[in-house]
Each structure stands twice: as structure tokens, then as C-alpha cells.
């Protein structure tokens, strides 16, 4: 395989190619951010939902669950949990977690959330359930 193969040309191709594709990526990201409002239901984000997100984060729910498929695979997907069990079902489940866990079973800690915090986390999960995720997950089981 004869042919010239110089380091300087390889370097030029590296810088040219990576800058080119980085600009393409930025352009697409700009278009995505511009097109998002039609898909992410941001108009439904109330202070209660914001509070719910903070509870979601400070209890490290992502450490066991997935949200829209991203996170840990130890416990069920929660992006569509309100659609699956309804708001009351979710609240009942959270409050009824035994402090010492269930013998032999994967156990969720008892977070002792106040009534307000329960409202907030449920509102957050309800909001996430309304995001247009291109019809993911495949079914209600998530």
C-alpha cells in the first residue's frame, strides 16, 4: 500500500475533523434546545415540582431506580410510575416502607417524608411522566 502518510497531514485532519464535528454537534444542540419547549412540558413545572426534584436528588433515588431509563437497574423505572400506580398508590408505597426492610427482598429505605414532601415527589414524578419521550417505555411496566 504505497502512498505518502505524513504526521503533519494527520494532525491537520485531526484538528479540522474534530472542530468540524464539534461545531455540527453545537449546531444540533442549539436546535434541540430551541425545539425542546414543545416536548418537555416545561410550562407544567410548578414550584412543587421543583421541590419534588430536590427530594428526588437529596434521597438519591437514582441510586436504585431509573428515570426515563437512566440510573440504577436495581429497582423499577419511575418515569411512568404515576401512570402505573396512580398518585395515591405512589404515596402509599413510599410511606409504607418498613424501616428495617423486608427480609430477603430488595428493600427501599423509609425516608419519613412529610406530607408536603410526599406531594412534591409525586408531582415531580407525575410531571416526568408527561415528557414526550418518543413513546418510551414500551409498556406500562417500564
Amino acid at each position: 500500500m504505497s502512498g505518502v502518510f505524513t504526521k503533519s497531514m494527520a494532525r491537520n485532519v485531526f484538528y479540522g475533523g474534530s472542530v468540524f464535528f464539534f461545531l455540527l454537534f453545537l449546531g444540533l444542540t442549539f436546535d434541540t434546545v430551541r425545539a425542546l419547549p414543545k416536548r418537555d412540558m416545561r410550562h407544567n413545572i410548578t414550584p412543587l415540582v421543583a421541590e419534588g426534584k430536590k427530594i428526588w436528588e437529596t434521597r438519591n433515588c437514582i441510586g436504585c431506580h431509573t428515570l426515563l431509563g437512566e440510573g440504577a437497574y436495581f429497582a423499577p423505572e419511575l418515569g411512568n410510575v404515576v401512570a402505573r400506580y396512580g398518585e395515591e398508590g405512589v404515596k402509599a408505597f413510599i410511606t409504607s416502607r418498613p424501616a428495617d426492610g423486608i427480609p430477603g427482598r430488595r428493600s427501599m429505605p423509609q425516608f419519613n417524608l412529610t406530607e408536603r414532601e410526599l406531594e412534591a415527589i409525586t408531582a415531580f414524578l407525575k410531571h416526568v411522566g408527561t415528557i414526550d419521550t418518543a413513546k418510551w417505555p414500551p409498556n406500562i411496566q417500564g
Partner: protein
Amino acid sequence: MQYSSQAVAKPYFVAAIGLFVGQIIFGLIMGLQYVIGDFLFPAIPFNVARMVHTNLLIVWLLFGFMGAAYYLVPEESETELWSPKLAIVLFWVFLAAGVLTVIGYLAVPYATLAKLTGNDLLETMGREFLEQPLPTKLGIVVVALAFLFNITMTVLKGRKTVISSVLLLGLWGLAIFFLFAFYNPVNVVLDKMFWWYVVHLWVEGVWELILGAMLAFVLIKITGVDREVIEKWLYVIITLTLVTGLLGTGHHYFWIGTPEYWQWIGSVFSALEPIPFFALTVFAFNMVNRRRREHPNKAATLWALGTGVMSFLGAGVWGFLHTLAPVNYYTHGSQITAAHGHMAFYGAYVMVNLTMISYAMPLLRGRQANSEKSQVLEMWSFWLMTVSMVFITLFLTAAGILQIWLQRIASDPQPFMVVQDQVALFYWMREWSGVIFLAGLLAYLASFFVGGKPAEARAS
């Protein structure tokens, strides 16, 4: 070891291996929790063990990268490190931040840790891989910048080579993309979108530059092939990496609320992402076959070749397995993702660090290579860890396929936990593979202490 300041790399490597052992122990705890649900509950719930497992992984890999930089930059730039003292100070700061963070995870409930560490000021906690409290995140930024300053000053006052410039590019990219960890909008879609700047553009972007530079350095030293050839191929490989990896970020934008054109762009470009890993493997084998000297450190050569193969298998093949949108629709958020995660991280970044450590440690201890006995033990550890990782990945892939069938494809889809009970067998087999992996790791540790006459260095 041509420059005395390269000795600064030694504590970094030691810390890296120490944290690696910690990471594997917590991996075993989690593996057991998958089958014995309430193991160590409520003392160490699964999410806490996971935080420790994933954070230790990232921290020890960063220790490895920094150690590698402190080792190879002086040698590449043919000048002493700008400030060895600064490097040692940063070592203790970073180690302290890491240990304190892990203690914080284990000692107090996460919500309390958040309150104690000023999460109310700036909410950055509670996201996967970015669970660190605010002070730790700020500490990471300070350490990273000071480290980069130290390394960049060394390169500026010395010889500029492709390897050191590519390494710098990778390390600066790493630091810059980490800044997105401080961006945590209330809008979940935006939050996830830019979260991937820290995760994807690390492991499928700038980290591959760091991997390329480290592997190229080790290959030059081991094979003696002249620098021109190796550096040309390095440029070609990292070009392919960024060309495919940047738009490849799209394969994370399929189902998180971002527009659906990402399903096409993400699939097409991430489908090409295995190519640089394939080129890396061909490159590594090519260089070793055309070697112009017989380097006594056979173990390091094995690690270097293994890095190519396992990164192609783990990141390339197992990545391609579930990167196309129609497939990812079913595998998203299943054990298939976990399988890819394990083998990709091990094959690419764990192994390149072990390659570097296996090459540099004997030199840091004053000999060209370890004794025959020690190298044989190290090769045992290579095969034990690599094969057990392959089995972990196979078992998780099997669990994932069964999970997807039962939970998503079957005519009467079953709930998550019902499915998890039915795939428990694979989790048991994964746990046993994990134990063998630990055995391999302990063999790796032992290989440093198994004495005996070091192999006399025939070539220079």
C-alpha cells in the same frame, strides 16, 4: 525512569490500586444485594453502596490518569516536572476529598449529607456519577486545574511531542466538561441533556484521547518502534474517535425528551464508534509485531494488547449491541446497559491504567521489569480479571435479554420485580465471577511484593 520528578507518580498509582480494591469490594456487596435484597440493609442500602462503587471507580481512574501524566510528561518533554511539591500536595488534597466523600456517603443518610454540605446553596447532588457534595466537586475542580497547570507548565518548558499534546488535550477536555456537573436545571430534559456532556463526552470523547496517548507512550517504550509511526497512527485513531464520538452523543438522546432526529443521527454515528477501538487493536498488535527490541516487561505488553482487544469488545462490540435506536427502544434501562458498562469501563480505562502501572511501577522501584515469578503472577491476574469480566458481561447480557423479553416483549409483560426474581440465577453467576475478579485483583497486588531476582534488562 529518566527524571527524578517522575517518582511523584508512585503514590498516585498506589492510591489508584487501593481505591480499585475498595471499588471491587463494594461491587461484590451490590452483587450480593441483587440476590439477597436486604443484605446490609439499612446500614448500607444499595444506593449508597452504588455511589461508593461508581465514585471509587471514577476517582481511582483519575488517580491513574494523573499518575500516568506525572510519569510520562517529564519523560516526553525531557525536562523535570514543573513542581513536584505541588503534585504531592494535590495528591493528599484529592485523596482526602475522596476518602471524606466516601465516609460521608457511608456515615450519614444522603439527605443529611446534602444539608450539611451546602446543597441548598447550589443543588448539584443526587445525579448518577455526580453524587459528590458541593465541597468535593469544588475540590475536584481545584485539584484538576492545579494539576493541569503543573503538567502544562512542564510541557511548555520542554519538548512538545504528539503524545504529550494529545494527553494535554484529553486532560483539559476532561476538566472543562466536568464543569457541566454544576449545571442542574429544574427541567429534567435539559438536566439530562447536559449531564451527558460530563459522562458521554468523557468516556466516549476526551478519555479516549487520554487512553490513546497513554497506550502510545507505553508502546513506544516497549516495542521501540520509532515515534513517527506511532504518533501518526495516534492522530488517525483520535480523529476517528472525535469524528464518531461527538455526534455519537445522540445515542443518549433517544428517549429523554429530545427531538426524534437524534434517533437517526445518534444511531448512525455511534454505530461507527467501534471503528477507532478496532484501529487501536490493529495498531497495538501491529506495533508489537514490528517491535525492534525485546522488552523484559512481558506483563505490560500483555496489558497493552489486552487493552486494545477488551476495549474493542467492551466499548465497541457490546456498545454496538444496543446503540441502534430500534434496538435501544427495548434495551434502554435494562441489564444490557449494565453489561456494556462493566466491560467497556474495564476493557478501556481500567486496563490502560493497569498497563501504565504495570510498565511504570518496576521503573519507579529501580528496575527495568519485575522478576519472572512476579510477571507470571501478574499475567495470572490479567487472565483472571479479564476472563471473569467477560463472564460478568455475558451473565448480565443474558439477564438483560431475559428481562427485556419478560418485561417488554412478551405478550403479557410482567412487573419489574417479578422479572428480577426470575433472572436471579444470572445475578448469582455474576456474583461468583465477581469473586474470581477479586481473586485476580489480589493476585495483581501480590505480584508487586513477590520478590525474587528481577529480570536482567537485556536491551536498554
